[in-house]
């Protein structure tokens, strides 16, 4: 039950970043699963219930914001936190996704661990 309650999804095509984020969340007592592509992410969301997804915007097979929509189709309550090095806070698509409630927040790469820790608080409880 504990595992399910604090399971986080990491979607990033950069293995080192996945690895570091996994470690950080592990320190916080969370479990993680990582996806390197949109396809893998969709597959994992079908099989697991995550508290929150940390998602890169640019993936080899998908655009993060489009992917957010498709993930939400599978799991409408899934909070998604965008983590990107190519978006700015005033990006039109980003602002719209936030306003529509498609994503719950945005963290810019490189990030402070504190920002990730705080973001875990945005995860759903059940």
């Amino acid at each position, binding site marked *: 039950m504990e595992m399910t309650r604090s399971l986080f999804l990491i979607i990033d095509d950069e293995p080192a970043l996945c690895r570091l984020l996994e*470690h950080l969340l592990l320190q916080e007592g969370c479990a993680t699963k990582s996806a390197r592509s949109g396809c893998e992410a969709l597959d994992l969301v079908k099989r697991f219930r995550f508290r929150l997804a940390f998602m890169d915007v640019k993936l080899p097979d998908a655009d993060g914001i489009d992917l957010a929509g498709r993930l939400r189709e599978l799991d409408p309550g899934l909070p998604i936190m965008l983590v990107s090095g190519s978006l700015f806070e005033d990006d039109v698509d980003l602002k719209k996704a936030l306003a529509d409630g498609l994503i719950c927040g945005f963290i810019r790469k490189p990030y402070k661990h504190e920002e990730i820790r705080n973001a875990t608080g945005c995860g759903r409880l059940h």
Partner: protein
Amino acid sequence: MKGILSEAIDDLSDVLWERAAARKSFHEFHDLLVNAIPSSILLVDRNLQVLFANRNFLEKTFHGKDNIVGKRLSQVFPKVILEELGLEASIRSVFDNGGSTQGQKLTYRAPGVPLRTYYYRMIPVIWTANVDAVLLLMEDVSEQVQLSKEVHCAERHLASVVDSASDIVLSTDNEGRILTWNPAAERISGYRVDDVRGRSLFEYLAKEHREDAKAFLSILKFQGGSRTADWVLLTADEGSVFISWVFSTMKDEASQTTGLVAVGRDQTERRKSEVQRLQREKLTALGVMAGGIAHELRNPLAVCSSAAQFLMNDQIKPEFRRECAEMIQKGITRASAIIENVLTFARPSDDAEFAPLDILGVLDEMSRLVAYEAKIRKIEMVTDLPNERLLVNGNRGLLQQVFINLFLNAIKAMSMGGKLRASAECSGGELLIRVADTGCGIPQEALAKVFDPFYTMLPMGTDTGLGLSVCYSIVKEHMGTIEVESTAGVGTILMVRLPLVADEAPI
């Protein structure tokens, strides 16, 4: 004229003179002859009185049918002529010396008539032992003088055109020896015309262009017409100037090639502005690629930053500590490689020279640079280049621009993602580079216009100025060709052919 006259008289005198019956006929013939010739004849005696004047003289001096025989010279010629030319003194000296005078020019404007110019001589006439009379022979050379003035004027005009031209204008004989060298050639080269006249033009060309120039000119001599070439001119201060030449053959009346004319334009300024234009376009291209580059850089930075934050925590296990240090090291290496790729393209190149360069290396560097942008646009980038060192005589900056333009155009055509394939193959001394995309394609009716400088497929305001026309002119400058094949909705292939040069440099 005197020769003809005296010969005629000599010949005739043998036959006619002795026959009294023929005397009358001879007089008539004599009159006919002296009146028919286009020269003016005046015969004067020792007292400077007129003995005879032919019709031409009377007409030219406006005496008409007046009988001037017996008149004094001062009554025949205007005072001004007599005094200016010292005519009377000259005639007297002929009487005294018995020799002809040298031909002289006389210019006279009678009131109300145009200026006339005469060429005159004085010839002693000796019937007895002394000089009995002096023949003043005058020829109206006004028309010849006028013609020669016009010719001179035309020559002067032509010379001033050549002299005031800002381009080099020179001529050589068939062997390339310099005949003329205008002031612009003096200014640009620093060599005076006297320094170069008679010397071979090839001496003043950069060593690497001499053989090329010799072959070029020998072909031109046979084929005629005109041809262009870009050769470096060596200057007197041991510098060099890049010149675009147009060579033409000079032909004589029999259509034989007698030499060559060359017009050369100093391309230093044009090259300078080309380098500036290239730099502007590079910056535009970098702007287009900035998003991809930033994303690509932020990933290793994010890795380094996160790993460093773990390292600041004393609680972590030694294995993870080491792993973090390794990640930082790898991240920094990756970030520097990206910066290196960007700088290879972005750094300003003042070097407008062409030199043998590793063409596949340039293509590979540019494909790496553009791969960041391709990646964030969901475009799969495939490069299939032969593992060879192939050389093209070219300019790195210009060729980088060609490849970046082709890649970015391909990326722009694939707004929904796709596949960008860059390949190269070598055949028959040239390299064929293909850049193929699976994008929207170019409609058939627009295909012919894609190399036009003002044509764009993109909506107004979105054009980044990365035109195919730029690629076209750069490839042409590299003696290559560029072609396009496209099917709407399927994709486009751009094919660039560049001539290869032999690899002489050690690898």
